[in-house]
């Protein structure tokens, strides 16, 4: 390097809002990444689980003696080995069961030298069942004489939630228009491309190391411990790369303690990994619900009240699914300015598979109802839906009935942006008129919006994240964060933030977040919180390190710290960018001096939100955000097929941090939401899954995806890192009602029960023809 170029001043630039690639992408694109599914440990045994394959039964007898005798089998466990080891949100679950409450209930488990031996052993286990009458809908579960699923949960009642604000009767009386509908949202599942997997190993001190796909490693210890009769402190959680999570790894599921119980019994590491069919049958679902919603407004289009009476199909056990009312009520009370709100939700045990959390967490279900009722009200008012939405849209500074304070609210701008970019109003009018005309193919346009927490959600005692940051003698930075990477890209966000603050190349940052013995506490990847919370944590830690470095530089150079900056691996003068000292040289000087100092800082970031609280009146997130989607579709009225032509999305993201990662989250979120709206459905017949494969459970493929037009609204959140808000759930939340509204625009038919499959749409259109024209002779 010649002297001239080394003297060149370094200009101030920023990475915020740029397109940054994921640091793990090269290994993932070359096949080097060792996912948990790929892991093999020396001496490792393979664990397999015998599922009940019936929805409700007593176990009369179980004989595992033949399986135990098979060469290569190391142990066989049954319900008696897990007796009393209750776990779960309400302690209603055990790893291995003495009674069957749903199809996938775990009855026995085998650890063997190979998968093939384990499979053979499974076939040698004989179980005699006495089948019991089952409960397969929450309505049936509520009946007086319904079969009881858990002895200690009378009337099959699981969780209950209620929120009341204002005088409902008075508000109804004051309403000139009321819409009143029942929406039934269905069972879907996550379909992570990497199937569920856990590897457990005990050391000689009795400490458990579990390699897990979990997305909440610290509470995971707390939740796993009772299933094993252990102290949470004796569990170390390792998090190798995972093939997707989407909320499915926010709880402990029986295969995980089973892996640990097998490992304990055999003294060997044990790996349990689901087949795809097992994954469909035995992993969590999105919470299904029956939502009876009423919304009222005055003739001039002002919302007067909203009420929701929700019945949840709890399934056989209580995971996170039945807790979704805490989010459902936030939408019921916060989706547009609603002065009077009543919300009531009851979860009822059934013999169906049970729900966990799934991207959108209750808001997907509620918004399907609220956003369609907004559309219905606008029609009854004979008002352009956009005008109706704008009239009732909250503004910055408003507080919802649940005391969510909307500091920076950009709903207005989201609505205007999406409507303008899609030419919504003109098309909506045009397609409404065209509906009455002849023609096989009908176009429709539909708009939907929602609100979601975007600065964490304080449903635990803490919503914080710990960060440890060290800078070594070569100016390489290691960030040890509690935040988990599940493919969503927090690695790239933290990478970008730290490089931004310390003025170093992106490649010089290493992130460590895969070992609970090393990384500090974090509540988990959920609630669209990680960029906000862990991003803030990383920034605060980096700023501390930066300050330490600049102070040291100031001492050595006698230039005031505030006149210095870090750019391109150098300490430079803030005003002109002139290089003062190479950063790594400075770091070595700091280290190897009479009073040595190392740069290593810690930070614990706890957002300024309030705990959810029993009365559900709190500012439970540090930020709230809105998204608006406009869906343009074409309906083939003969086959019922819906082609989605284009989605226009406008979302308040606060501020773009990593543009590429953000786009990826919005696009992926839309795809999951479209699957929910159009094609994905777990077809359950008396608790038994009929379509446990990708041929019959229809995840969208590339040719089915529409053109996407994404607009990011930057409201600059005061509390968020650089102004950013959380973003990843809203795209999944808003899309299904946008599709349903578009289908109504195209056909004049409302669909209350997703998914809008070709058959369902064709049938509805045909049924309407029959009532309009009378039964025709030909079919």
């Amino acid at each position, binding site marked *: 390097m010649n002297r001239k170029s080394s003297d060149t001043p370094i200009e101030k630039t920023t990475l915020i809002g740029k397109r940054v690639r994921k640091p793990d992408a090269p290994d993932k694109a070359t096949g080097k990444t060792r996912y948990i*599914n790929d892991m093999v440990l020396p001496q490792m045994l393979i664990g397999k689980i015998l599922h009940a394959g019936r929805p409700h039964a007593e176990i009369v007898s179980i004989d595992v003696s033949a399986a135990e005798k098979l060469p290569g089998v190391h142990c066989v466990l049954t319900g008696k080995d897990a007796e009393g080891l209750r776990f779960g949100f309400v302690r209603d679950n055990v790893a291995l069961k003495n009674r069957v409450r749903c199809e996938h209930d775990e009855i026995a488990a085998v650890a063997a030298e190979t998968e093939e031996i384990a499979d053979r052993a499974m076939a040698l286990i004989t179980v005699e069942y006495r089948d019991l009458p089952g409960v397969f809908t929450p309505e049936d579960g509520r009946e007086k004489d319904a079969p009881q699923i858990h002895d200690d949960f009378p009337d099959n009642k699981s969780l209950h939630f209620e929120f009341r604000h204002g005088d409902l009767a008075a508000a109804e009386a004051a309403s000139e228009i009321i819409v009143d509908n029942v929406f039934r949202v269905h069972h879907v599942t996550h379909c992570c*491309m990497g199937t569920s997997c856990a590897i457990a190993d005990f050391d000689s001190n009795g400490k458990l190391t579990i390699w897990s796909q979990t997305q909440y490693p610290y509470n995971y210890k707390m939740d796993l411990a009772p299933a094993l009769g252990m102290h949470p402190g004796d569990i170390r959680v390792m998090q190798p790369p995972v*093939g997707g*999570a989407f909320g499915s790894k926010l709880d402990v599921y029986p295969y995980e303690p089973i892996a640990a119980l097998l490992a304990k019994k055999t003294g060997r590491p044990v790996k349990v990994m689901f087949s795809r069919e097992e994954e469909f049958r035995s992993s969590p679902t999105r919470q299904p619900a029956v939502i009876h919603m009423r919304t009222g407004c005055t003739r001039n289009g002002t919302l007067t009240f909203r009420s929701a009476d929700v019945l949840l199909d709890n399934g056989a056990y209580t995971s996170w699914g039945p807790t979704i009312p805490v989010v459902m009520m936030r939408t019921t009370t916060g989706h547009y300015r609603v002065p009077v709100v009543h919300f009531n939700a009851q979860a009822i045990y059934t013999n169906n598979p049970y729900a966990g959390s799934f991207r959108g967490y209750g808001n997907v279900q509620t918004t399907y109802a609220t956003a369609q009722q907004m559309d219905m009200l606008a029609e009854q008012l004979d008002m352009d839906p956009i005008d109706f939405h704008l009239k009732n849209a909250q503004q910055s500074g408003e507080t919802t009935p649940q005391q969510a304070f909307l500091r920076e609210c950009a709903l207005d701008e989201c609505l205007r942006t999406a409507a303008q970019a899609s030419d919504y109003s003109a098309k909506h009018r045009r397609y409404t008129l065209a509906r009455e005309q002849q023609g096989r193919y009908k176009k429709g346009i539909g708009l939907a919006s929602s609100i979601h927490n975007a600065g964490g959600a304080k449903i635990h005692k803490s919503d914080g994240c710990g960060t440890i940051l060290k800078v070594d003698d070569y100016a390489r930075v290691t960030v040890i964060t509690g935040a988990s990477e599940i*493919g969503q890209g927090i690695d790239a966000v933290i990478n970008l933030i730290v490089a931004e603050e310390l003025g170093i190349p992106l490649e010089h940052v290493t992130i460590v977040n895969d070992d609970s013995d090393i990384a500090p506490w974090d509540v988990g990847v959920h609630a669209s919180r990680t960029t906000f919370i862990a991003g803030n944590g990383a920034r605060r830690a980096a700023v501390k390190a930066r300050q330490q470095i600049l102070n040291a530089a100031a001492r050595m150079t006698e230039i005031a710290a505030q006149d210095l900056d870090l750019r391109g691996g150098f300490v430079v003068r803030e005003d002109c960018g002139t290089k003062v000292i190479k950063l790594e040289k400075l770091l070595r000087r700091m280290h190897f001096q009479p009073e040595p100092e190392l740069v290593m800082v810690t930070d614990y970031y706890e957002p300024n939100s309030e705990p959810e609280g029993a009365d559900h009146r709190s500012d439970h997130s540090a930020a709230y955000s809105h998204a608006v989607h406009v869906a343009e579709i074409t309906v083939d009225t003969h086959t019922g097929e819906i082609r989605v032509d284009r989605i226009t999305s406008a979302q308040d993201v606060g501020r773009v941090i990593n543009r590429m990662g953000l786009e*990826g989250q919005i696009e*992926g979120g839309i795809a999951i939401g479209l699957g929910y709206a159009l094609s994905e459905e777990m077809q359950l017949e008396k608790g038994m899954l009929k379509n446990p494969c*990708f041929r019959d459970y229809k995840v969208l493929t*590339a040719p089915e*995806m529409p053109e996407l037009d994404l607009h990011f609204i930057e409201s600059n959140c005061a509390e968020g890192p650089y102004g950013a808000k959380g973003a990843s759930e809203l795209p999944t939340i808003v899309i299904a009602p946008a599709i349903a509204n578009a289908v109504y625009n195209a056909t004049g038919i409302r669909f209350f029960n997703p998914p809008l499959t070709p058959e369902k749409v064709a049938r509805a259109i045909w049924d309407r023809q029959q009532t309009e024209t009378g039964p025709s002779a030909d079919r």
Partner: protein
Amino acid sequence: MKQLISIEINGEVHELAVAPQDSLLHVLREELGLIGTKKGCDTGGCGCCTVQIDGRAVYSCMTYAMSVQGKPVVTIEGITENGQLDPLQQAFIDAGAVQCGYCTCGTIMAARELLATVPDPDESQIRHAIAGNLCRCTGYQKIVDAIKLAAANSA
């Protein structure tokens, strides 16, 4: 009843004891440790296990290992030459097509056949070429962008 066979993978010939019903996927992963070929469903429904045989993309979970004797198999590990990534690998990284990454290798292998036969594919050709590869993370947009980028970079 295992038999000794020799198969050529990524230009290297391997002698292996294989049972007639063993899938190529099983042999790649369990016998050779080539874990870049992923097991997503093992029933030809997801595309994670896509490899190329004689230049054509196939699901290795449905391919009998015995049947590939004498037919060159290429896996994701075999398309990086002298440390130089395949243009598709580079494009997937640069375009943000990788999130969880579990589908990535299989999708690259499917796209590879497309670019070999259609160097400048249009959007619809790209989407149909990867229609047998499921992705749950990206909504496919960045994958399509990556394949376009790779085509442009190879031109």
